[in-house]
């Protein structure tokens, strides 16, 4: 009887037992992501001039308006994903874009990368990435990245929360870091790792690259996707110099476009292995 009793206590710690999973739904995902964005937004707003708050309010208003319009016209429940889109876009684009430029870019991203597909979970691109790509093409040489150690640390804190919730994939983030290092080492620009202020790269990695909708959706695919985006980011960083936002936005865009293909390849390989096994 002793042995049996000790088993119950023992089994809990035997081997790797992952933490229990939550019953996820769209509101909870949005809420957790917003919580993760809270520290980084606070750090940014504390350092930014006071008129920047107007930009944040405008970004929120634009995203809300489009979501409300689509929800109303489709007679669907309101989604709250627009808060995340507005915040991430604002943090990366507030410096350098005027308010009307922000509104146009954000409208395009929200409508064409999110709403016309049907919202969260039905898209394959992150709306912030599309909005930023549009802004970069239309209004060149205006985006400057937020800097600073605190910004990077706050982004890391958000990343830890998302990893704990298993919304962001540790495979994507590890693959991305490895890809970045690999790319920089391969082209002999290891000086970037120390010299460049990496706040924006960390932020974009956590909230844009590791966005579950935009990333690949198989475990192996997530590794491949992370590596791919990391390597492209490293190449574009070394080619573009100061233009960090540009580099990571285009790397993510390219990665998201290739993500379904990566998943398809992984599924084919798994199916082939299954056939061989008989």
């Amino acid at each position, binding site marked *: *009887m002793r*042995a*049996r*009793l000790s*088993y*119950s206590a*023992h*089994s809990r710690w*035997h*081997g*790797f*037992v*992952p*933490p*229990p*999973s*939550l*019953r*996820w*739904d*769209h*509101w*909870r*995902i949005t*809420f*957790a992501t917003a919580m993760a964005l809270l520290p980084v937004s606070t750090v940014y707003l504390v350092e930014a001039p006071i008129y920047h708050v107007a930009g944040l309010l405008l970004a929120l208003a634009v995203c809300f308006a489009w979501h409300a319009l689509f929800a109303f016209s489709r007679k669907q*429940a309101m*989604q709250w994903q627009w808060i995340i889109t507005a915040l991430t876009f604002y943090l990366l684009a507030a410096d350098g874009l005027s308010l009307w430029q922000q509104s146009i870019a954000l409208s395009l991203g929200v409508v064409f990368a999110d709403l016309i597909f*049907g*919202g*969260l*979970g*039905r898209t394959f691109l992150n709306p912030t990435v599309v909005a930023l790509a549009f802004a970069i093409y239309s209004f060149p040489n205006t985006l400057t990245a937020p800097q600073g150690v605190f910004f990077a640390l706050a982004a890391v804190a958000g990343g830890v929360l998302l990893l*704990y*919730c*298993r*919304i*962001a*994939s*540790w*495979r994507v983030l590890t693959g991305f870091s490895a890809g970045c290092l690999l790319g920089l080492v391969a082209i002999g620009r290891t000086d970037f790792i120390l010299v460049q202020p990496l706040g924006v790269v960390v932020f974009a990695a956590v909230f844009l690259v590791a966005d*579950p*909708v935009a*990333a690949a*959706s*198989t*475990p192996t695919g*997530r590794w491949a996707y992370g590596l791919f985006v990391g390597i492209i980011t490293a190449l574009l960083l070394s080619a573009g110099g100061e233009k960090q936002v540009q580099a990571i936005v285009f790397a993510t865009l390219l990665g998201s476009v290739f993500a379904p293909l990566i*998943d398809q390849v*992984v*599924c084919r390989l*798994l*199916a082939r*292995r*299954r056939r061989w*096994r*008989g």
Partner: protein
Amino acid sequence: MVINVRHGWNVSGPQFAAAKAATARSVRMVAVLGADYPNIRPRFQVVQGDHVRTGQILFQDRRRPAVAITSPATGVVRELSIGRRRMLDRLVIEVAEDEFVSFASEIGHDEQMLRRLLLRSGAWASFRTRPFSRIPSPDDTAAAIFVTATEPEPFQDIPQAFAETHEEQLHLGLNALMQLTEGPVFFCHNESFRPHFHKERIRACAFAGPYPAALPGTHIHHLMPVSSSRTVWHIGYQDVVAIGSLLHSGRMWPHRVIGFTDNVSGVSNAFNVRAGCSLHDLVEDQNGSGGYLASGDVVAGRKSEFLGRYHYQAFRGRLNRTDPASGILASLFNRFPAAPPGAVVPLESLDNALPADIPVIPLIRALACNDVETAEQLGCLELAEDDVALLSSICPSRADHASLLRLALEELESKRR
């Protein structure tokens, strides 16, 4: 051999002390439920008001008349209701003093006689095939037979206690299983339970890990994965004892030791009851309001007032269901209303719900659009309803993946015929 299962997680609930002995409960009503036999089109041998004996045939499968379902009790048939598509809904028997149908004259030594005995006594229905999770046809053969002697938490210790008290019948039953297959008989058990079998073809295999480690689908996946060309059978450990007992005494053995979790009052108990018993008889506070009765384990169980044919667990759940996970985040989320169902978001936490080489998100997508070809390539033949229950419990889409899987399996099965 010990296999550590790495996917899945446990669902918290009231603890059960392993030292607790099972209390015997007499039941007034038992039922045979149509939900347990979804592919059996019944030809009834009894009508409402008939008096039946334990082991008497209640109905046969129209397509395979040799497959019979027998009565788990003696008494009067109080209710016989027909459900959709002229399938059985439920057949309720009011329990009286046991009178057994004797099968002693049919006990033989060769395989054909064994098969005939199992079919006549209704014990054949305790086997299920994988793929498809169906009762096998009378002349089917299996590449292997899996005995599931594991229970999800908190009842993980019941199989060992049960096997120790019914050792002789268990060995008789396992010997019978060896006659039914050319391949191995896997006895899948809990890690602390170290059974010894002195037969080469009976292989004991321990499974350690969270909830899915107790499911037959997990055992089969790790030991002998099935495909369109390989079929295995699985059977519960108490049904093996029932077969052993049948061979020993020539009578049907209608008992069950079940774990019952009462989530309303927060206690877990083991009961010694009759197969198919009414779950109302197990609830302590009859007048306690709130909650529903369900048969099966806490994750994969279905709402039912009676114990299912294949279930060794039952529970009473709370109506206002909150997050089963514990922790700061879960308690925070439980304060807010839940969102309406939405599209699947490919979160990494979903990956963990199925074995590693079955990609979850592509499988969900294939099942959702009934792309059976892709689903088969991704490995849906290895799965049954209880394997995807864990996935349904956390998926943002709130889709019933078990039903979608069953649709795909039905289509694959019909193509195969």
